[in-house]
């Protein structure tokens, strides 16, 4: 097992773009010269139902295929999941939890760093829609350093051409700056 291997688990609801977030983070990691692997928790996805997606980062090809039970990082796209879903389950000491909220969060395990960001407000302001997955990617880049912001920008522009790409990049960068400023 590589000492380098690090794992991310994304918690969201069907329709929030958790799988897209995993794919784009893996793509940004790949562009940052890191081996990556992204996959969904293979379910029958319904809008609003709790969903998970996973990303692995390593300095060599990722071989492991099981789901992620002991993540280094989590992203929680909807804080109302907390309690219904054990989002912090198995988190490693020294791990980072990035949560889309402005409220107080309870139950963060000892040794896990909490990064709160009101991504929904940023997305509403910049995209005009409460679709916060790309905003949270910027927060993830700043909080963890796993992906470079320019690599994230490139990945977002590939997936969302034109002005949609501009807006998503702007939202990600705003979250990136806020989290960087708070560290």
């Amino acid at each position, binding site marked *: 097992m590589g000492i380098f291997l690090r794992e991310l688990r994304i918690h969201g609801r069907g329709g929030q773009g958790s799988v897209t977030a995993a*794919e784009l983070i893996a793509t940004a990691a790949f562009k940052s010269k890191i081996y990556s692997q992204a*996959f969904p928790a293979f379910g029958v996805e319904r809008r609003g139902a709790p969903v998970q997606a996973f990303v692995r980062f390593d300095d060599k090809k990722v071989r492991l295929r099981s*789901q992620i039970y002991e993540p280094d990082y989590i992203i929680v796209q909807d804080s109302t999941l907390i309690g219904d879903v054990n989002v912090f389950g198995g988190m490693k000491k020294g791990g980072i939890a990035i949560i889309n909220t402005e409220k107080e969060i309870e139950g963060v395990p000892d040794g896990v760093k909490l990064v709160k960001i009101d991504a929904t407000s940023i997305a509403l302001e910049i995209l005009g829609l409460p679709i916060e997955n790309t905003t949270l990617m910027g927060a993830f880049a700043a909080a963890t350093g796993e992906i470079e912001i320019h690599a994230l920008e490139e990945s977002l522009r590939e997936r969302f051409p034109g002005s949609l790409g501009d807006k998503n990049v702007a939202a990600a960068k705003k979250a990136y700056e806020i989290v960087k400023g708070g560290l």
Partner: protein
Amino acid sequence: MLQIMEGSHAVAEAVKLSRPQVVSAYPITPQTHIVERLAEIVADGELDADYICVESEFSALSSCLGASAAGSRVYSATTSQGLAFMAEVVFNVAGMRLPIVMTIANRSLGAPLSIWNDQQDSLFLRDSGWMQLYAEDAQEAMDLHFIAYKAAENHEVLLPAFVCFDGFILTHTFEPVDIPKQEEIDAYLPAFNPYQRLDAKDPISFGMYATPDYYQEFRYEINAAMTRAKKVLREAGAEFGEMFGRDYSGLVEEYRLDDADTAIVAMGSVCGTIKDAVDEMRDDGKKVGLLKLRSFRPFPYEDVRTALAGVSNVAVLEKNINIGSRMLGAVGLEVKDAVYKNGTPVYSYVGGLGGRDIRRKDVKMITEWAETGRNDCFFGLREEVL
């Protein structure tokens, strides 16, 4: 060039590079992304192929059969219930010696309905006369398509091939793959040169009925061709390795087996998880290794016997159930036969059915079971059924 993409799209790229002239398929989870992407590729003019839309898997493989008999390189993809629905045509394609390549996005068979992964679907067509190759990752899934076409179309073989890769676990995972260039694949895989074909000017028949005076000889010939396929597959894999730097000359792959006491045998994506588990067990001083089967049909029993000659125990991790047999898994039966003369104990441990996650700790557990001589059984079973 290394790119990151979904496993299904990597396979669609491999199919495009193989230049099939006819594609016919019916969408079914988790194969859908392959055929959707191929439909786009054909519609965008990136691949000059007839994409035949059909109302079912039975028709998909039936139209592939006709197109292949007419001399075209042909592709299809399916899984699970779709493959079961094709079954009659599956046997006919092999019987007519048509070198069709079909991707199987491995999925369990109902009932109960499950869209998730195991390897029961391809394995239930074990005796159909199709080659069966299994991929560990997206890269191998891609590469095995080129090798499959090359071996299938070889006039020493002329048998169709499944390229099996695990549904969701590989089809829906984003990971880096190295996409060959078209001119490189053209050099490796020249245009299909049919041994015989349907031609209105020189009519022949395929798949006519055979009386008891002749039928048996056809089955003999199919089996002989499958036996020859071992050498052809090894050569096709070696040539691929020389051209692309990824060696597939072995129908099996050994991982840390040299001085191993216990060998784990498996096929498909779980081999990646097993390799990581083997590294951890090796770090703990345990002499354990993996024998990965890349080809299940033809079954490379000589390679298996040689690879397992020095081990004391064999744990076969089975993503299928051989219902009603003493040996619980279809793979274990073959492995046991291969090492029979060595007298090495071989155990089938069945798990991961219907998408049950297989973790490193499961691999460590079945390794211990084999070491202590635990008989064939399920792993990861819910206790209330026991």
